[in-house]
């Protein structure tokens, strides 16, 4: 018989569909725990050049995180947040996208920006909030944004980027572009109302958007067992009519394959796709967190070493004869030097000039702000000795 919404078969069995199926949704992987290619795997081939680029970026990301975290500890930047343990998700997903795809990150995806060509110096400038920061010193550290890299400026409130990604995807569809919107979220973010609104809307509006959920097991101190009672996030796609897949987030080739194919389907068929990438948040939530307070140190160590996505991929790259210890040493030395130089340069650079306090509230500063700027400049003239020397007037 018909109901609004279509035909439904009747049944005489009075039975509740169980909240969880007996078997969990399986996880797609290409490499085994040691980085060896599994048999009979359907995956996207990568050339030597591409593989080396992916690996080098993963190492760079890892080093960036270590050094910049330390910089915060040394008091040189006020805040930092690492993506340790999630290098494969960051770099391999970025490698599978085109530069025209618009990325709306949560905040643990700076590897995507790194892949797209954001330099060490550009990262350091934002962290220091100096006058070369594209954000003009307006945002906390790690809130990167870059129009030319199609990377939408990071916004702190969780999950707000999900419905916005749908809006962008809808616009790309209206423009008939060969591009999609790609948005990232953590396991915790899926509890937000915007997750529901975004996924539901993406399905109804048939928008080409990839929802990539980094299920890393922890939302600050909230373990996923306290976040939801579903079989992770992948099963939620079905609730909205969205095709979904669970992948091993620590397997660069699996992530690359899933994202590349998802992208093609999304654009061609005008559909959203949900990708749940299983992983582990090796680092603390941020420099404001000490995760040893709520999880065992040996658990962190295990994921940092035995399940490390960077060393796993290195094994595969080396097994093809595309990498060596010498190459590793050369890369690490080069990156370290570049990074430290960038930090030093950024520290020495002066802060954004005073007029940047009042600009961009609207397209043109309104009368009240112009008055306030004039008053401030007057006050500075009278009390120049009280004004900080590294902020140009």
């Amino acid at each position, binding site marked *: 018989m018909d109901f609004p919404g279509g035909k439904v078969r009747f049944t005489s069995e009075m039975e509740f569909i169980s909240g969880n199926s007996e078997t969990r949704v399986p996880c797609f992987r290409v490499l085994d725990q040691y980085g060896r290619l599994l048999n009979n795997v359907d995956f996207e081939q990568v050339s030597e050049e591409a593989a080396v680029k992916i690996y080098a970026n993963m190492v760079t990301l890892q080093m960036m995180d270590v050094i910049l975290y330390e910089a915060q500890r040394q008091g040189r930047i006020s805040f930092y947040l690492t993506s340790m343990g999630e290098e494969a998700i960051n770099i391999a997903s970025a490698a599978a996208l085109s530069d025209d795809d618009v990325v709306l990150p949560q905040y643990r995806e700076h590897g995507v920006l790194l892949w797209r060509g954001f330099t060490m110096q550009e990262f350091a400038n934002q962290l220091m909030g100096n006058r070369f920061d*594209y954000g003009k010193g307006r945002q906390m550290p790690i809130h990167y*944004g870059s129009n030319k890299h199609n990377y939408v*400026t990071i916004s702190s409130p969780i999950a707000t980027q*999900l419905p916005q990604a749908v*809006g962008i995807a809808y616009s790309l569809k209206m423009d008939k572009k060969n591009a999609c919107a790609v948005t990232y979220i953590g396991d915790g973010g899926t509890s937000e*109302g915007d997750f529901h609104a975004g996924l539901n*809307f993406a399905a109804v*509006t048939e928008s080409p958007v990839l929802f990539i959920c980094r299920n890393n097991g922890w939302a600050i101190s909230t373990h996923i067992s306290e976040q939801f009672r579903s079989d992770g996030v992948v099963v939620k796609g079905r609730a909205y009519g969205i095709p979904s897949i669970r992948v091993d987030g620590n397997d660069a080739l699996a992530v690359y394959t899933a994202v590349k194919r998802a992208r093609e389907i999304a654009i061609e068929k005008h559909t959203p796709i949900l990708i749940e990438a299983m992983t582990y948040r090796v680092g603390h939530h941020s420099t404001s967190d000490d995760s040893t307070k709520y999880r065992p140190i040996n658990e962190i160590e295990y994921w940092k070493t035995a399940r490390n996505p960077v060393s796993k991929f290195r094994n595969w790259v080396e097994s093809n004869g595309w990498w060596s210890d010498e190459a590793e040493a050369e890369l690490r030395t080069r990156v370290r030097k570049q990074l430290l130089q960038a930090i030093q340069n950024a520290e020495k650079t002066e802060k954004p000039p005073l007029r940047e306090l009042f600009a961009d509230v609207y397209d043109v500063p309104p009368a009240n702000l112009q008055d306030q700027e004039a008053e401030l400049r007057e006050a500075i003239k009278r009390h120049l000795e009280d004004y900080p020397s590294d902020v140009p007037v």
Partner: protein
Amino acid sequence: MLGFLRHRATAGGSAVPLLQGALQKVRTASLSLKSYSSAAKDMNVREALNAALDEEMAADPRVFLMGEEVGEYQGAYKVSKGLLQKYGPERVVDTPITEAGFTGIGIGAAFYGLKPVVEFMTFNFAMQAMDQLINSAAKTNYMSAGNIPASIVFRGPNGAAAGVGAQHSQCYASWYGSIPGLKVVAPYSSEDARGLLKAAIRDPAPVIFLENELLYGENFPVSAEVLDSSFSLPIGKAKIEREGKDVTITSFSKMVGFALKASEILAKEGISAEVINLRSIRPLDRHKINESVQKTNRLVTVEEGFPQNGVGAEICTSVVEESFGYLDAPVERIAGADVSLPYAANLERMALPQVEDIVRAAKRACYRSIPMAAAAN
């Protein structure tokens, strides 16, 4: 919600059934006005909004409308009547019931470069989208250092209607009015509605466009100049609806009609009131307000919303800052009662400003009210 339900009962016409009493009061106010200019024709606010939307959508293919019931239903208050038929479902999008969702989607589309007009069935429901509105729409141009502007309009009924209760009657002018990055406008007449909506759609900033359900059906004369498709009104400029010399009365939206009615009554008692239609809450036309007070030396602020931290409080401060020496009397502030709006008609009437409240306030400002000692006898 109730407004929407009342709509279902209508026999498909464009008139919205209102409580007779409220309708009469509002109609009387408009009929007693002198014409602004050589009136070409009468037009109600709903028609003015509809035509403005139509013209802006025709002129710029990036403009599109989104909201609950805006398409097939022709608009919960029929403001988008005919637009789905004319522009198709890609440009008039019926959304599921999730304000946070469609607000976020509109903002995303605006980040990309489209120009959405997002309709809230009432601004009461927009509270569910408050994070997107403030943290994403208002702040993003600044926080992205000008890289990600959001040219988007959020419109819908604001303030009290008639008998719709507390959760459908709040006025949000002062909430949105305090946020840097937003522009906030509140039209009164059809000319206001038409000119300000066109300006809002063309403006690069996110604009909160506060309509009023009871004004939708009210007729105003509009001149040929106003009817031209290039017409628009500048955001941030107030209008002197009625010139006067004894007391300045500031108002916006429906309260403009009440203030004008009050000024008729005051005129009979020899008090010449100057009525200002703010038109714009942010930016506030402080210059015009202060210029008026420097002429009349007395001020009454009128708003429908809650008194604390309201629009009147900001106007009062602006006048104290710039025109203190000109004031001959303390500033009088008329606002809604500091309670959630009750439903019962008698209680609702007492909780909202009425014409007689404005008259009494103006008289107090002119030291013409009954002295306390005499009243005590």
